[in-house]
C-alpha cells in the first residue's frame, strides 16, 4: 500500500446542502475533508482524525466528481471509520456516488444531479425532500479513511467536503408542526391553523425540533438528547420520540395532551444532552379542544367503560368537557 497523501487543489463550499437559517456568529465547523482528492492508484487513501465528544456530533458535506459541478454515474468513493464501532448507525460511514434505485440515472453529460454523499449507503433526507440530511456519530474517536472504489488514475478525483458540528456546540432549538405524526416535513400554515388537538385522548401533538449552528445550517435533534414538555396549565406531558427514517435524521416528538380547557394553549419543549446542556424552545401555541364522545341511553349518560344492553337506543354525542373531563353545561355542542 502506498503512502496516503492529501492533494490540495481547490477549496470548496463549507455550508451544508440542507436549508440554513441565520444564527449568531460561531466558529466554522470542523472540516474533516474539504479538498479535491486524486486517486492515481487504487491503494491511495486519505486518512483524517475524528473525535466526537460526549454529546455526539452531526456531519454534513457534499461531493462532486473532479472539478465538475456534479457527481457522475460512474465513480464511487467511500469513507470508512476505524474502529468501525464509531458509527453504529452506518456501515460504511460514508459513500459517495450514484446509488442504483435511489439516484436519478445520468442522461446528460454523465451528470448525476441527485448524487452526492450518503451515510451508510442510504440517503437521509431532510423532511423527506431531495436534500441530504446530516449523519450522526455518538461519542468516540478514531480515524476516517477516504478511498476510491474505482480503478485509480489521474482522472479519478473527487471534491469532497465533510464537516463536523458537535451537539454541545449547537446554539438554540426551535420547534415546528410536521405534516403528520410520521412525516417530519413542516406542515403549511393553513394546515396548522385548521388543526384542533383533542385533550385527554390518545391524540398527540407532533412537534419537530431543529437546532441551529450560526449561519452554517440547522440540524435535527441530537440523538443523545432527551426531551420534556410542559403545558401552560402547569402539567408536564409525556413525550414519545419517534424516528420515521429508521436511521439518524429528523425525529418527531409526540406530546401527550392532558385535560385542559378548550382554547389556545402553549407547550414548552426542552431538550437535555448527556453533558447536561439544556435547550428550551419558545413556547409553541396550538388549539386544544376538550371534547369527548358520550353514550346516552334514555337520557342517562353511560359511565365509562361504555356498556349498553343490546337493543338499546343509544345516542352517541360529542360534548365539550371541562378541564376535569366532565361535560360542561347541558347543551351539546
Amino acid at each position: 500500500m502506498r503512502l496516503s497523501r492529501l492533494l490540495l487543489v481547490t477549496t470548496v463550499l463549507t455550508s451544508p446542502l440542507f436549508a440554513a437559517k441565520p444564527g449568531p456568529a460561531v466558529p466554522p465547523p470542523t472540516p474533516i475533508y474539504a479538498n479535491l482528492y486524486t486517486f492515481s492508484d487504487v491503494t491511495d487513501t486519505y486518512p483524517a482524525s475524528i473525535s466526537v465528544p460526549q454529546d455526539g456530533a452531526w456531519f454534513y458535506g457534499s461531493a462532486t466528481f473532479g472539478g465538475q459541478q456534479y457527481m457522475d454515474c460512474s465513480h464511487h468513493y467511500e469513507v470508512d471509520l476505524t474502529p468501525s464501532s464509531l458509527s453504529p448507525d452506518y456501515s460504511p460511514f460514508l459513500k459517495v456516488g450514484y446509488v442504483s434505485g435511489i439516484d436519478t440515472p445520468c442522461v446528460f453529460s454523465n451528470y448525476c444531479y441527485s448524487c452526492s454523499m450518503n451515510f451508510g449507503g442510504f440517503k437521509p433526507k431532510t423532511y423527506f425532500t431531495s436534500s441530504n440530511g446530516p449523519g450522526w456519530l455518538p461519542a468516540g474517536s478514531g480515524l476516517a479513511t477516504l478511498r476510491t472504489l474505482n480503478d485509480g488514475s489521474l482522472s479519478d478525483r473527487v471534491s469532497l467536503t465533510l464537516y463536523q458540528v458537535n451537539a454541545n456546540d449547537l446554539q438554540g432549538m426551535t420547534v415546528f408542526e410536521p405534516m403528520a405524526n410520521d412525516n417530519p416535513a413542516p406542515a403549511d400554515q393553513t394546515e396548522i391553523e385548521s388543526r384542533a388537538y383533542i385533550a385527554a385522548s390518545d391524540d398527540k401533538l407532533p412537534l419537530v425540533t431543529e437546532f441551529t449552528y450560526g449561519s452554517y445550517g440547522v440540524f435535527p435533534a441530537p440523538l443523545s438528547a432527551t426531551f420534556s414538555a410542559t403545558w401552560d396549565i402547569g402539567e408536564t406531558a409525556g413525550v414519545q420520540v419517534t424516528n420515521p427514517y429508521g436511521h439518524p435524521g429528523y425525529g418527531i416528538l409526540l406530546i401527550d395532551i392532558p385535560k385542559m380547557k378548550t382554547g389556545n394553549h402553549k407547550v414548552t419543549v426542552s431538550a437535555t444532552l448527556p453533558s447536561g446542556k439544556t435547550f428550551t424552545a419558545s413556547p409553541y401555541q396550538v388549539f386544544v379542544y376538550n371534547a369527548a364522545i358520550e353514550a346516552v341511553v334514555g337520557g342517562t349518560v353511560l359511565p365509562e367503560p361504555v356498556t349498553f344492553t343490546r337493543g338499546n337506543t343509544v345516542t352517541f354525542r360529542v360534548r365539550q368537557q371541562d378541564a376535569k373531563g366532565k361535560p360542561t353545561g347541558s347543551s351539546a355542542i
Partner: protein
Amino acid sequence: MNGGDQTGFAADSTEWTGTTVAPGLVQVSLTIQTGKLARTSHKALIVFANARARTDAQWTTNRSICDDCFDDLAVKNGGHLPQAVVFPSYVNYLSTKNFPAQPNGAICLGLTGERIGYESGILDKDNQFALEPHTLLKPLPLYRPLDPKNDPAEWPGRFTVSNITSGPNRTYWYVTSQRYHTEWAYAVNAFIRPGSAPGADPANYTHWKYDPNCGTPTAVACYTNESLASCWTARTSLSFLDAASQKINPNTGQPYDMARLLTNVKTHEKGFHWQLALVDYINGKKTTYDIGTILEGLAVVGPNEASVKAFIDKLVLDMNTAYANDPLGGGNERVDPPGDMPYVDDTNGCVLFP
C-alpha cells in the same frame, strides 16, 4: 359527525342515534368553528361501546323433559331392530348383533330424545316420514319449531327480526324475539314398563327371524317379524313383566328384581341423556348450542328480511344436526348395566331363561 351513507344525516350533526346491538369503536372526526377558522380534530374522537346481553325471559331457552313418557316403546311394527328397541327375546338379542348400534347383542330398555318427533313423527320435504311416529326417540331436533311442515302453527312466530336504520349499527338485522323450545322425553321399553297395555299384550310379543336365503345379515329386510303370542300364551297367562318378576334369578336365588331394573333404566335415561348430555352440556356451550344465547347475540347484515330469516333458519338447522351428532351431546352413549333380566327363549317354547 359524518354519518357516511346514512340518509338524512346532517353534515353538522353532533349526535348519532340508533338501536345498537353490536359492540365496537365509534370514531368521530370533529370540525369546529373557532373565530374565522374552521378547525378539524387532529385525530378522531373515539369511544368503545361494549354490548351486554338482554336478560328478558325469552332469551332463556325453554326446555322440558317428559318423564317416563310413553308406554309403547318397542311395540310398533315389532320394535326397531337396528336400535334393538324390541321385545326381549333371545332371537331378537342375537339378531341385534348384526347392527352397529348393538354389535354385541342387546335389548334396548330405554330411550331419550325429542318428544314431538316420537309422538307425531318427522316429515321430510316430500311429505314422507323421515321418522315414523312411535318408533324411536331421537336427539333431533334440539329445537322446535323444526320447519313449516312439521310445526305449521308455531313456525311463523319462531322469531322476529328488525332492521336498524340509523346510528352506528344501521343496516344490521337483529332478533327481537324468539320462541324456540326443547321438548325432550324418555321412555322405558314397553315390555318392562308396569301399566303398559301394549307391553302387557301378548299380541305384541314378536321376534325378528333372519331368512338365510336373503343372505345379508345386516339388512333389516332380511328379517321377518313373527308373532310369539301363541307360543307365550300357551305357556303362561302372565304378562312378560309379571312372569319375569316371578322367575328366580339363578345369580341371586331370588325373583328377578324388575322394579329395580326399571328404576335403573329411568335414572340412566334422565340423569345421563337429559341432565348430563343436554342440560349441563349445553349450559357449558351456550354460544354453540343454546339458542337463546345465540339468537340474542346475532347481528346480521342482509339485503332483506327474507334472506336474514333464511340465514337464521339454516343456523338453527345446522345447530340441531350438530347437537345430534355431537359425541358429547345427542350422540353420547354409555353402557349402563341396569341389572339382570330374563329373556324369552323363543327357540325353546318361549320359556324364560336363564
